[in-house]
């Protein structure tokens, strides 16, 4: 009977998330599927909305600092830095050089820890369990270092307006050097275990190609963009802090596929190590805190936009002051927001397995998107 009528062909909807092993947070993607193939994809966000932007209007400048470690908890220090830079610019505070060096060292360490976590979690998405624990083993060293210095392991709130509260000591410096040596010795392992694996190459080569023009239209930034061959990195393109003093490269990809994004992130870790080592070598002596930073900060009326390069791309703060003790408006320009908005284009007409591979390659931190 069925055959006489002919089987009706139709698509069906599949909810990828909000509870799903590979969305790494509460992201939901409504997939319209034709068998294994994806016809359309519609990301649904907002499950982790904590109203960070509204909170900014209700708190003083200092009180808002701890929020910055909780927007993107994986590269919290970059967010700390961006917010401090914005307020410092607005209030005209100059940060001593040693403090800037400490900021760069800790932020780069944090970037490596973020990339390591991404590396492990991404391999988990592709079905390889083991690299995850190798990365966590390495990442643990960073967490221990930063834990000793900042007092927390994840949601750091370390920078202050005008500098940093705690100076680094010889133990920390020795620890950084030991870590960079250790991580360097791991590259071969990672290459042999993952990068040269035939299955891995098949899963990532020419999958999820992001053309540069599309990246431009969607405002994609970070390693996701650099995988497509555009060397846009705020650390070079719009130098902030003391980054111009260091010699490092911006790794870029050629084809813009998942593999290129993966390679870019791996090479970025090496570049971060270079930055850290140079910063340790050149570390100047001096104060770590600007003098006379008022307890009750009241920046003059005005607006400012500052941007930093986080592990995921450009994080910008648009800060408007009306001369009050509280910000008038804080807009957090988060990289993953724009990076995720390009996802429907990338996963159209791919299979579920590819969709997971592409989703992972964008390196999303969902609470950051929801703010």
């Amino acid at each position, binding site marked *: 009977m069925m055959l006489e009528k002919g089987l009706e062909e139709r698509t069906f909807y599949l909810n990828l998330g909000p509870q799903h092993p590979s969305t790494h947070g509460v992201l939901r993607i409504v997939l319209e599927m034709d068998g*294994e193939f994806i016809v359309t994809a519609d990301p649904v966000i907002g499950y982790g909305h904590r109203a960070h932007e509204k909170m900014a209007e209700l708190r003083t400048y200092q009180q808002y600092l701890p929020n910055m470690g909780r927007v993107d908890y994986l590269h919290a220090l970059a967010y700390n830095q961006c917010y401090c830079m914005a307020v410092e610019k607005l209030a005209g505070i100059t940060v001593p050089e040693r403090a800037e060096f400490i900021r760069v060292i800790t932020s780069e360490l944090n970037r490596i820890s973020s990339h390591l976590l991404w590396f492990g979690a991404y391999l988990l998405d592709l079905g390889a369990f*083991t690299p*995850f*624990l190798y990365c966590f083993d390495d990442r643990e060293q960073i967490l221990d270092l930063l834990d000793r210095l900042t007092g927390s392991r994840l949601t750091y709130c370390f920078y202050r307006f005008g500098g940093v509260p705690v100076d680094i000591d010889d133990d920390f410096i020795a620890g950084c050097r030991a870590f960079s040596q250790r991580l360097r010795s791991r590259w071969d392992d990672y290459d042999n275990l993952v990068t040269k694996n035939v299955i891995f190459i*098949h899963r990532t080569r020419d999958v999820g190609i992001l053309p540069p023009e599309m990246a431009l239209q969607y405002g994609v930034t970070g390693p996701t963009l650099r995988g497509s061959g555009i060397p846009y990195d705020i650390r070079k393109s719009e130098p902030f802090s003391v980054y111009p003093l260091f010699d490092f490269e911006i790794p870029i990809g050629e084809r813009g596929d998942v593999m290129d994004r993966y390679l870019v992130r791996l090479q970025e870790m090496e570049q971060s190590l270079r930055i850290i080592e140079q910063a340790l070598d050149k570390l100047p002596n001096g104060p770590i805190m600007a003098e006379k930073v008022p307890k009750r900060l009241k920046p003059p009326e005005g607006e400012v936009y500052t941007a930093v390069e986080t592990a995921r791309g450009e994080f910008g703060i648009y800060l408007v002051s009306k001369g009050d003790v509280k910000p008038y408006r804080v807009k957090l320009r988060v990289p993953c927001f724009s990076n995720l908005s390009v996802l429907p284009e990338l996963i159209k007409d791919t*299979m*579920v397995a590819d969709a997971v591979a592409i989703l992972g390659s964008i390196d999303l931190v969902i609470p950051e998107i929801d703010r």
Partner: protein
Amino acid sequence: MQFFLAEGARLGLGLIGVISLVAVNALFLIWMERKVSAHIQLRPGPMEVGFHGALQTIADALKLIGKELITPEDVDKLIYLLAPIVMFLPVLVSFLVIPFSPTLLIRDLNVGVLLIFAFSTLTVLAILMAGWASNNKYSLLGAIRSVAQNVAYEIPLLLTAMSIILMAGSFQPSVIVSQQAKVWNIFVQPLAFLLFIICGTAETNRAPFDIPEAESELVAGFHTEYSGMRFAIFFLAEYTNMFIVSAVATIFFLGGWHGPFLPPVVWFLLKVYALIFLMMWFRWTFPRLRFDQLITFAWKILIPLALLNLIVTAFVLKLVR
């Protein structure tokens, strides 16, 4: 009369033996899997319950038995409940013809190999039943993938088996083993062994071919909606299937019970567990293949190779004899 009594006693004893072997084997393999994966991943694994966590699986099993059996609404009840049973029963039957040693085997059937292959194919039916009856899209996708995968990998598996059967001239497992007293088949048929291990891993849905239950894509695939002991039965079946595939590979390629010094049954089990260790090693090292790559791999690489191997075997045999 006496014949039937003796045979009945033999079968009864055999079944009891098989069921206890299945249980003990699964307990051991789960512990082994956790330990192997842990040591590959730079961690100790379970350490608390018993010596180096040896009793951990028993604790887990007790927990699973104690769990509420949730039957979701809107499932196809009959098929949903039957699926774990259909998954598990054929697995038991296969043990009837596996020769652990020249004397330790329940039935020495002259179509033993056929019986194993025929019954192990039934697991795909169980997976399809579980996936279909669960009324869950992830389960359904897992079931569809599983059927496509099993159909694709069954063919090269049987083709490589055929080249061994051609050499032995018999479907009887004990005959195949006794012919390898001097030279194991792995040295005569290395390609066939390779193909057989690949297809065997795929047949048991183990990584890197675990797409029917690909965790990061399909949550848990066909058994997403199963909980408690029903889930445990799928788990049990997976490990028992690993044992059977490895046992068949041992019979076909590694000379079965043959080996110096140690008793035959020890040699047999040693080889089986070595192969299982190999499969675990795969799982904890490789990423997962994509669905279409998996199918392409079977149809475009494995099947032609297996066919070629069969033809060459037949040709050489014709020349030699």
